[in-house]
């Protein structure tokens, strides 16, 4: 947390956790998916399910999945915007269990060539979020840093390979977590980095033996169209 979290962000109301946080879950998930989303299944849990409608959580998540930012004035009308763009989504409820954060959502994103990704995320307050699960395996990251997520077979040597690559590239690791489904099963590394990991090196990594998949969250902002920019907050002279 820093000063910009105390004074800010500029956001569309009414709730930093239920609205701004929901937009952010959408934008981070969109980036993690990394390509065009053909269909999004959105399943709300807990407080997101019971009070989400009144807080615009449903519209906020759809806005985020389309790449709109927390200050975009089209958030209240994001369903109409989705129709205009041909963005396909469904909304429903789910029970993620009593250990899940009350402000949780599960997203099942579909893309071309049967690409599919399942994300469980929570809005943990003040617009900050936590990605809790990725494709059924635990994760725990905020989406605020360049994040490298490597799914690999649970066999020796993969951590050394990944950290070796980061070492060669002089990329500093901020946090690192390891999870596995079971011994000898699927494992996942979640590495938050202080700088971006170049695409060519991520591709190289994905081709290595025992590496199942490399997912990446970049902090480089998406290029926005002039229309998108026009709907964000801009300073205007205030008339009295």
């Amino acid at each position: 947390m820093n000063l910009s979290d105390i004074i800010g962000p500029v956001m569309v109301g009414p709730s930093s956790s239920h609205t701004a946080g929901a937009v952010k879950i959408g934008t981070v998930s969109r980036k993690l998916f990394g390509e065009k989303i053909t269909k999004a299944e959105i399943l709300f849990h807990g407080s997101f399910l019971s009070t989400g409608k009144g807080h615009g959580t449903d519209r906020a998540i759809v806005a985020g999945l389309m790449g709109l930012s927390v200050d975009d004035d089209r958030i209240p009308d994001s369903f109409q915007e989705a129709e205009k763009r041909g963005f396909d989504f469904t909304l429903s409820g789910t029970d993620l269990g009593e250990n899940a954060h009350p402000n949780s959502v599960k997203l099942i994103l579909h893309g071309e060539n049967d690409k599919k990704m399942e994300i469980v995320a929570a809005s943990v307050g003040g617009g900050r979020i936590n990605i809790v699960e990725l494709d059924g395996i635990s994760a725990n990251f905020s989406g605020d840093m360049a994040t490298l997520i490597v799914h690999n077979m649970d066999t020796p040597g993969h951590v050394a390979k990944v950290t070796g690559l980061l070492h060669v590239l002089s990329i500093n690791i901020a946090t690192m977590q390891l999870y596995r489904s079971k011994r000898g099963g699927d494992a996942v590394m979640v590495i938050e980095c202080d700088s971006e990991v170049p695409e060519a090196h991520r591709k190289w990594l994905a081709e290595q033996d025992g590496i199942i998949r490399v997912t990446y969250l970049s902090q480089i902002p998406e290029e926005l169209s002039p229309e998108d920019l026009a709907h964000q907050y801009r300073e205007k002279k205030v008339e009295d």
Partner: protein
Amino acid sequence: MYDSLNEICLAAEKTSRAFWQIIMEDDCAEQGITEEQSMENMRRMYAAMKQSDAHYEPDRLSGSGLVGTEAAKLRNRRNEGKMIADRFTADIMIRALRVSESNACMKRIVAAPTAGSCGVLPAVLITAQKKYDLDDDKIMEAVFVAGGIGGVIANRASISGAEGGCQAEIGSASAMAAGALTYLMGGDCREICNSAALALKSLLGLACDPVAGLVEVPCVKRNVIGAVNAVTATDMSLAGIMSKIPPDEVIDAMRGVATHMGSAIRETGEGGLATTPTGIDIRNMISMAQNNN
């Protein structure tokens, strides 16, 4: 961010700098930005606060229909010359309603520290700027003061209703606004912190009990007391009235009170005003309307 108001004062006193400069320098170090960038960020936030006030729509209701149009009603009363409060206090009340109603109506606001308490700081800053004809740079400095106080509260206690109840949201916003206003009125570091302490003390224990779980009832109107409370704390502080409990200890007390609060009054909508017979009726009405959609 600092985790002690006393430390900020000591840092300021040791180097003969203002409270706001200490916060700005800390922000630069923390975010790796220049002083110009840090000041530009705060200027931009204040400009956005002014817009959130200017873009109020007097006829608009929130999605649930529970709030909206209140600021316009109060303004009419003021224009008729019937309000008991003086012009300055009346304007603060009206602005607090304008901004927090806009928030409930899914319009653009600045979370300060949260969206639910977004009306407090703009109400105090904009109204003081108009009354005392202050320039934007002076207000920008006051925004740093507010941010510094909020940062200490976030570090020592909480600024989240789900963790600390409404005292952590409206209480924090009020303490931040009190410190900022005291600075604008010429208060020094100790007077700024004393003012924040007086404001926070008056709102200790405030429950977060939103009807139907929405940031509407009672949140919108609590922004009014948060803003007006900042004025009374400033007047007391500048009159030399001291909080007998030091500012950092008041914040610690807020954290302590939060630990005694059940989850029913921490933003779940399961206690307080939310579970009064009328509160429950409203919740049922809203959920019926939703199911019919």
